[in-house]
């Protein structure tokens, strides 16, 4: 055995020091330091109320994982930043987090922000998991391997159309209350696609699509549009107006009896409109990212209990569940690969099957879109529910695999259109 001389000793020592300093904590388990996840979500402004569900949901999810021993023995820690639902503000804080070495991020709810993250994360070697951004472009024409939608995609609209075909086979004429906005038009186009596929398949009847009522954003007076909708022969109405607009529209529609003999399918207001209108809320269906009362999984039950204990809110909305699914996705990917390095996590996330508050979900490897069960709830007024004034009177779950559109990363979705 040759003798170790001074030069060889120094050279090997320097090499070892360089190797250790390059990225000493890439391999999980070598340290007890927390694994930091960045949460970039609206924490101020008009979308703060959604961001608060993401924030609380992520905190509760991390608390539960840490209480159970963390990920490979290391606790998770969250670093929050306010994106203000603005792409410029969001990219600034995302870059700041990347500069701090936090490459694993989650929490985006705005489509423009999620779309901006694709090239940013690709260039800066980070990952973002969106918690509710709705644009179909995220996993189609603007697909980026560094952005994952771990929750509902636009295929929830197809699930809502399928549920209508199953539950209301005789309601074959449909129109929409559609905000004059990209999101509204996309939602309507995909809902029509679902109606045209599932009504013939399930009921044997061809649905009649009535031109939707296009309404402006932020209008205080929807009465002209309401009378226009009331004149149509459509027996089903899909509503894509949102938040305060939807509450105003529903309230003004009461004297006209617009929803009296029609089925109302709301796209995504969850409890927003019901919380505003209480006993005045019309009976309607709405899509939700996660319904806490479904008890879809043991994780969902323990998450709900911890969420109520932390926030006191007994009716959390679905974005909290999306945040749980995002934190759980990172935890599962880190546990699987034993690394927090971007390339390894992307590989681990693609095709990953894991448990969430809504049950099992799988991230489709081709376009980073999660396949999960889609949840719909029926809300109706209930004067006996003293504190809220409404109740959830029905719940339906549609398996995602039967309604999700084909993966076409880099290409636009192809949709059925009414003739």
């Amino acid at each position, binding site marked *: 055995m040759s003798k170790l001389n001074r030069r060889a000793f120094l050279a090997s020592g320097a090499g070892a020091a360089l190797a250790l300093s390059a990225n000493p904590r890439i391999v999980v388990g070598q340290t007890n330091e927390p694994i930091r996840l960045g949460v970039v979500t609206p924490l101020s*402004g008009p979308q703060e109320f959604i961001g608060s569900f993401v924030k609380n949901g992520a905190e509760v999810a991390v608390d539960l994982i840490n209480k159970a021993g963390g990920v490979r023995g290391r606790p998770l820690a969250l670093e*929050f930043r*306010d994106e203000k639902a603005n792409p*410029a503000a969001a*990219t600034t804080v995302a*870059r700041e*987090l990347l500069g701090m070495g936090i490459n694993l991020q989650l929490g985006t709810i705005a489509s*423009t922000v999620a779309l901006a993250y694709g090239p940013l994360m690709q260039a800066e070697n980070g990952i973002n998991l969106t918690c509710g951004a709705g644009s179909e472009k995220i996993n189609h024409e603007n697909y980026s391997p560094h952005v994952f939608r771990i929750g509902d995609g636009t295929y929830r609209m197809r699930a809502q159309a399928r549920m209508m075909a199953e539950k209301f086979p005789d309601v074959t004429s449909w129109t929409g209350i559609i905000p004059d*906005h990209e999101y509204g038009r996309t939602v309507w186009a995909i809902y029509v696609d679902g109606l045209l596929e599932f009504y013939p398949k399930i009921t044997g009847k061809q649905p009649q699509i009535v031109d939707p009522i296009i309404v402006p954003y932020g209008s205080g007076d929807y009465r002209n549009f309401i009378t226009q909708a009331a004149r149509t022969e459509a027996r089903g109405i899909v509503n894509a107006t949102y938040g305060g607009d939807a509450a105003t529209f529903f309230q003004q529609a009461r004297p006209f009896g617009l929803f009296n003999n029609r089925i109302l399918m709301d796209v995504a207001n969850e409890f927003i409109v019901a919380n505003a209108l209480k006993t005045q809320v019309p009976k309607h269906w709405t899509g939700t990212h996660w319904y806490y009362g479904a008890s879809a999984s043991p994780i969902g039950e323990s998450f709900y209990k911890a969420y109520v204990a932390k926030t006191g809110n007994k009716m959390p909305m679905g974005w909290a569940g999306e945040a749980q699914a995002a934190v759980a996705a990172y935890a599962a990917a880190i546990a699987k690969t034993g690394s927090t390095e971007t390339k390894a996590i992307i590989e681990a996330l693609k095709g990953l099957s894991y448990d969430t508050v809504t049950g099992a979900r799988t991230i489709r490897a081709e376009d980073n879109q999660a396949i999960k069960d889609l949840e719909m709830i029926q809300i109706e007024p209930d004067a006996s529910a003293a504190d809220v004034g409404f109740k959830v009177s029905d719940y339906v779950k549609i398996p995602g695999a039967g309604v999700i559109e084909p993966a076409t990363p880099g290409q636009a979705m192809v949709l059925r259109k009414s003739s």
Partner: protein
Amino acid sequence: MSRSHATRFLVILVILTAAALLLPFAANRGLVFLAGVIAINVVLGLAFNLLFSTAGLLSFGQATFSASGAYAAALLLLRAPEVPFLAVLVIAAATGAAIAFAIGFVALRRTEGVYFAVLTLAFAELVHVIIAKTSFFGRNDGLTGIQRPRIGPLDLAQGNAYYVFVILVTALLIAVLWWVTHSRLGRSFRAVRLDPMRAAFLGIDVRRRQLEAFAISGACAATAGALMGPLTSIVSPDLAHWGESTKPILFTLLGGAGHFWGPLVGAIVFSAVEYGTRSLAGASDLITGGLLLAVVLAIPGGLLGLATLGVRRLQARPAAPSEAALPLAPAASKGETL
């Protein structure tokens, strides 16, 4: 324009540019990115102040020009990548100048003062709506996937190359705006601002000068806006929102409208406060708004006005303490300094 003024300006510009170029050695990627955004905001503030303090035109529609440059550059980078980036910047500047000229042509024809300001706001909102509803401009989602370009053999996507480019181009734009402000053209802008009728009697074509000021401001704002797309990788209708038009006004009021460097100080302080309070969700906007209110109400000359006042008082005290109150006149009324 005196030589000492020009030398002093160049020294300050070189120091600021050097400090910005050295930043990547001391700060993380997030701060470097933020510094790039601030540099662009500085030009937007200075371009606004050329109109406001020099030409006497209050424009509430500056976001139209920066957004037009941003969209022109983004469209060319995405759909005609063979066009050299320097040519893209020139086209963006020309787009901003043309739109400014068109809006100015209509707005200046019949209105002035507050009516002119409201009309610029109306045009800005019109442009915002057109962008948000036109598929060519990507509607509400905007245009995404804008890559950082190459300039000949230089790949601006590598490391901090694009940041360095942004700093150099913004420094050049600042120099252009300073030169315009202090040139014969700038003096004629001031003459029009101070007394349009007297300026007209002196042979100055008032409307033409105002249109020129509008077009130059629009071209500079559009060039700065063109730098934004490759920096953030997206351009969205938010860039043309009226809220963006208020920012250059805030930078100017905060820093001091009567000083050439006022908008720069305002943009840096505004961003520093926003950054410093970023983790105080909800309180951040309150603190920023409260600061602006305090500055505008308590020190109408802005931060630079206050600093100038402090320096003058210090200089005046030992020589003639009884005259210390003399420099109390608002800095803005003394015309721009430096």
